[in-house]
């Protein structure tokens, strides 16, 4: 079986062809770099995505603080992560890279701020 997919690792968007035999990857073509190969493997076994959103700030100069997971999480967990993100309230100043939620949904990824929001 041949599966086709667009690599999302960079703006080039290589069209990758994956040849599968008995659900095992036997060949990957179309990618121009190693990232494409890794991406294709992960898409077959456990598709991963970085989740980005923004969380509500209270008593800070910005109303919303942009956030992301510091590692990709399972694609089928995206909406669960989002419903958790919606409950988060940030009341103290944060800086880009600060952890907002540790090990979100036991995914191994932390939710981190992506913008400085000083007092």
């Amino acid at each position: 079986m041949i599966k086709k997919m667009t690599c999302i690792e960079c703006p080039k968007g290589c069209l990758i062809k994956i040849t599968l035999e008995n659900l095992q990857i036997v060949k990957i073509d179309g990618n121009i770099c190693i990232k494409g190969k890794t991406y294709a493997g992960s898409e077959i076994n456990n598709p991963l995505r970085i989740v980005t959103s923004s969380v509500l700030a209270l008593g800070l100069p910005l109303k919303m603080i942009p956030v992301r997971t510091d590692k990709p999480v399972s694609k089928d967990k995206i909406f669960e992560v989002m419903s958790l993100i919606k409950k988060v309230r940030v009341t103290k100043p944060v800086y880009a890279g600060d952890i907002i939620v540790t090990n979100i949904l036991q995914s191994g990824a932390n939710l981190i701020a992506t913008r400085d929001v000083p007092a």
Partner: protein
Amino acid sequence: MIEKKLVIVGGGPAGMAAAISAYEHGVSDILLIDREPYLGGILNQCIHTGFGLKYFKETLTGPEYAGRFIKKIKDISQIEVSLNTFVASLNKNKTLTVLKPGLLVEIKPEALIMATGCREKTREMMHIAGTRPAGIFSAGLAQKLINIEGLIPGREVVIIGSGDIGLIMARRFTLEGAKVKAVIEIRQKSRGLARNIAQCIEDFNIPIFFNHKILRIFGRDRVEKISVCKVDNNLNIIPDTTFEIACDTAVLSAGLIPENELIEMAGVEIDKKTNTPVTNELNKTSILGIFVCGNSFKIYDIVDSVTEDSFIAGQQAAEYLGRLR
């Protein structure tokens, strides 16, 4: 009248890179102006990842990419930053009339770099018939409302056009619990990057209609539905293919227009088709000492290219000032 060596209008990625580069090429006395209360420009609302792969060799969100430049600007005392500052006019002697809260001043730089970015095509430019109810947003405005203001502008959304911001917003609306009922693209393929079709549309099974055109927006106070029909590859309507989609929100994503009205006011020659300066050379204009960089010079697909070309603009301005001495 305030005199400056170099004024840069626009504190987004283009203006910040130009300021840093001009400083690194020996210019002191730099003034960087932005109308918003923060540096970073449109990157602040682009909270998704995908920025910086070329320039920083890692994938960052918009605010992270901007943040690295903001830090650098703050560390350079020769770059003065003026926020909440709006340039109202520009004349051919490079004199800027500038408004800030409680103040109207004229600023005369020896060299000027315009890094004013671009704006989105409007409904009027797309010739969409129908009523004018609430619920029609450009993709960038919807992005600002959700990511900066924390407001969800609609529950049942149709995206018109498939530019990158439209695709990104299809995903963003979906993540926020809204239903994106369709993306309508008049051409045979997307205007956006292939990876955005994959990660924003296909990941969430959002229906995308190529070779389809919006005909009309319906609704009295709020958008109620839109009508759509099929077109052939020459964009001619195919009869008897019209159908309707019920929705409360129409998000327009049909392309960007470089914002160059200030230099046009000053008499810089502008190509009316692209709204960019007429020139044979990167970042240059028909008036010596006025440079344009970033998305106001040409629409770039990725911010890394904006940064790269704006570094050149900073160097060009430094060389120009060097020759004046």
